[in-house]
């Protein structure tokens, strides 16, 4: 088999960060080659370089044995490389056919030859097992079908080397199966497929070869049949990375948060979203809520914060807070790191100092009587940025200009600045780079030692096990188990979460 694409010692640095130090991989025709690594390991940068969106500082790209230098994506398309973007690039009000042919329309005189285009697209769809009605509007399609349109777009332009950037992130399991069948079809047609992912079970299902990158460098290139998911995970994470862990028992006798029979019913009256949740949380204790996403964790957070009506009782530091508003609860000393930082925690188009005010707009240090205390806000924002290592030019920087990790560190810093006695942390390290992850863990650890009670919700099982003093497993809105993290492995926790154990 011949080598379709070869990357040799690719390096790329951005101001202040090295995205790629030394990435090499070689993809054979007729194979699916997975590129795996943690978020921030440099997967996307490598692919942007291969697709001509960025240029490498050093290193070599070979396509079918010849060295190439791409200036822009059009050059890559010329070299028969196609990219299926993670975020779909489709016009909703156009038909499938219009979306596919846009930019390279077949001409018939001065008009578009729609008949020829339709024939070609239908033929292609049948050939690769991507059946779709070419005349339906894209807005009427589901996510899986939209992805088909994206794949057809790439194939229509004659791509033989296909890059899939985290294609399964937006799909439900059934659609993932369909996609993998399509990938197998493409492989059988002699295409070279590069599959970027960090979901290792999927990688092992579909890939022939796996290249692992860590901190911008290739650390291994293996055959998928020779490795297990655990081995891949070890390669991906490496030993140099920070580990989530806490030391000793810092639990204090006083109870910070107590939930008694907290339930949230649905409007339709079917199964409760959360049902009779009862637990106590001591000062200086971290309780981890484990569960597959959508099993009531988000609703639990909303109940504690007062964002949603519930039945049952919630006590904070011994006093019932059922009737208190969100603002009151925050004033009492409850902090929140929401699960979706861009939608729930920040105003992306506003400067950091305005974001610093969010949630603290009712008193010192932000307010001075009825007016904003600009001087204090500025110095305060600066000190949060220093203390929590938020890398940005200054308080006037727009939130949108920060990387995900820096945004998250800023949010953690903002919540910590008031030294709340209870912190509800929802996925505090999701989608942040390794350095920020370590820093956030360190902050939580320190706060715990000072007596803060923390409700930790996470999809990262190692984080849950490492950071929690106690684990509660939620399944379909009910707490089904309480586990001791010291005696629990991720596997055990995982099966408890799905109700298998």
């Amino acid at each position, binding site marked *: 088999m011949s080598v379709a694409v070869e990357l040799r010692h690719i390096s790329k640095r951005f101001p202040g960060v090295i995205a790629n130090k030394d990435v090499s991989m070689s993809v054979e025709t007729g194979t699916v080659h997975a590129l795996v690594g943690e978020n921030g390991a440099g997967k996307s940068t490598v692919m942007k370089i291969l697709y001509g969106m960025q240029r490498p500082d050093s290193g070599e790209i070979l396509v079918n044995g010849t060295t190439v230098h791409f200036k822009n994506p059009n050059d890559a398309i010329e070299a028969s490389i196609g990219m299926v973007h993670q975020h779909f690039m489709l016009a909703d009000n156009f038909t499938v056919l*219009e979306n596919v*042919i*846009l930019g*390279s329309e077949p*001409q018939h005189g*001065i*008009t578009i030859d729609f008949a020829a285009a339709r024939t070609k697209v239908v033929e292609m769809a049948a050939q690769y097992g991507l059946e779709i009605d070419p005349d339906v509007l894209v807005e009427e399609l589901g996510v899986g079908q939209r992805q088909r349109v994206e794949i057809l777009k790439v194939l229509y332009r004659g791509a033989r080397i296909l890059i899939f950037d985290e294609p399964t992130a937006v799909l439900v399991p059934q659609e993932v199966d369909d996609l993998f069948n399509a990938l197998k079809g493409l492989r059988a047609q002699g295409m070279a497929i590069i599959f970027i992912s960090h979901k290792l079970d999927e990688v092992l299902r579909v890939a022939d070869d796996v290249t692992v990158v860590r901190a911008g460098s290739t650390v291994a290139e293996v055959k998928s049949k020779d490795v297990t998911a655990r081995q891949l995970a070890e390669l991906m994470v490496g030993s140099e990375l920070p580990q989530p862990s806490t030391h000793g028992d810092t639990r204090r006798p006083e109870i910070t948060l107590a939930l008694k029979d907290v339930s949230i019913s649905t409007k339709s009256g079917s199964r409760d979203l959360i049902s009779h949740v009862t637990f106590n949380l001591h000062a200086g204790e971290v309780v981890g809520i484990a569960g597959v996403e959508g099993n009531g964790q988000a609703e639990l957070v909303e109940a504690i914060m007062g964002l949603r009506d519930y039945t049952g009782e919630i006590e904070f530091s011994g006093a019932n807070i059922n009737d208190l508003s969100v603002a009151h609860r925050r004033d009492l000393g409850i902090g929140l790191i929401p699960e979706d930082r861009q939608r729930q925690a920040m105003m992306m188009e506003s400067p950091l100092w305005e974001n610093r005010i969010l949630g603290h707009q009712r008193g010192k240090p932000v307010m001075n009587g009825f007016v904003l205390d600009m001087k204090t806000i500025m110095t305060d924002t600066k000190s949060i940025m220093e203390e929590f290592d938020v890398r940005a030019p200054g308080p006037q920087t727009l939130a949108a200009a920060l990387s995900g990790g820096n945004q998250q560190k800023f949010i953690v810093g903002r919540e910590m600045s008031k030294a709340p006695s209870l912190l509800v942390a929802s996925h505090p390290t999701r989608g942040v780079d390794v350095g920020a992850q370590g820093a956030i863990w360190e902050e939580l650890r320190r706060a715990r030692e000072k007596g803060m009670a923390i409700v930790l919700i996470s999809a990262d099982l190692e984080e849950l096990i490492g950071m929690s003093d106690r684990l509660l497993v939620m399944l379909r809105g009910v707490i089904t188990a309480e586990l001791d993290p010291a005696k629990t492995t991720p596997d055990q926790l995982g099966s408890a979460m799905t109700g298998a154990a």
Partner: protein
Amino acid sequence: MKIKALKFLRYATILVFVLAVIRQITGASDLTSVGTASAALLLSVPIVLAGLGGLFSERSGVVNIGLEGMMVMGAWAGGMIGYKHGPWLGLLAAIIFGAVGALVHAIATITFGVDHVVSGVAINIIAMGLVRYLSTILYKSGAWKGPSQSPDVDSIGTNSLPVLSGGDYFGWKSPDLLNSLAEKHWFFISDLASILRGITGDLSYVTVLAIAMVPLSLFVLWKTAFGLRLRSAGEAPIAAESLGVNVYAMKYAGVLISGGLAGLGGGFLAIVAANHYQENQIAGRGYIGLAALLFGNYRPGGILMGAGLFGFADALQLRDSASVHALILLIVVVLAVLIIRDIRKGKIVKAALTFAFAGLSLWYFMAVKELPGQLVTMTPYIATLLIMSLASQRLRMPAADGIPYRRGGLR
């Protein structure tokens, strides 16, 4: 496509029939007269052109409130160049001046990312001041009646459909079948004939040209690669850019075509509808063109209907206030159709609301024998407003319309 055309013909025939019935009941003969139909067409043309102008701009993703100002510039250039160099060059100048106004809008919104509405309003204000300023500089006594009005422009020839609507062809005097039918005063047949005679007879060449722009726009925007790319710039510019479409170029093209069409509309007002440029000649027709664009749901055929509706109401109020009174009955009929449609779709609240409107209109029709003059002048606006608000459909504007676009500015 063919089915659509047949459907349209059927609806048009039904509409004429309803008009004939109302004429019979009320005796308002001007409802279906040759004169009304021909005036309605003449009054529709500038609105069609403005609406099509809006179509090109907004389909490429740029909101164009500046249509009004571009029409003003077109009308001024049409009058000024027209009286010196003849009407055809005047029209050309109108197109160019409209496009110049559009160029300013394009540079501001596309290159510099200025808010589209702010830039459009600025253009409207600047255009009005600019043409007054230029007129004052150019003003000479003699042929000029004053600095607010240009000297007269020669008229552009007219013609008719041979055999059906009369006219002269190389010395041959064509028969005028439609007109003779219209004069028979047969119920419905004569009504249909006189409306057809009105919109096919004594047409200015420019009217034909302007109406031809409707199918031409449809063709360009939906059948050519250029049109597909232009629309993609208004629907999903980032996706379009990723496929090698030059989004900036498409937006510039859309806005410039928009200005050209609006300028032509202004020139038409100065040269064909009147025979000179006059201040305040446009009188909000750019905005009404935008309304027709919305009414037509960003499609050429819909724009033509919206403009036709306005033109018809405008023609009636100009010709005969008694017919305006009869028009109320027509509105009642249209509302009745909407009520039936709403009930079928299960929208009871909306149907009830429409019913209340219809009842009120019917009562007013019965109670008042002649409309007060002020109300008559307002007719086209009221009719447009009523039909637009009550016929509201699923409005689908281009997804990225009005959103400043930056190359490489990923979401």
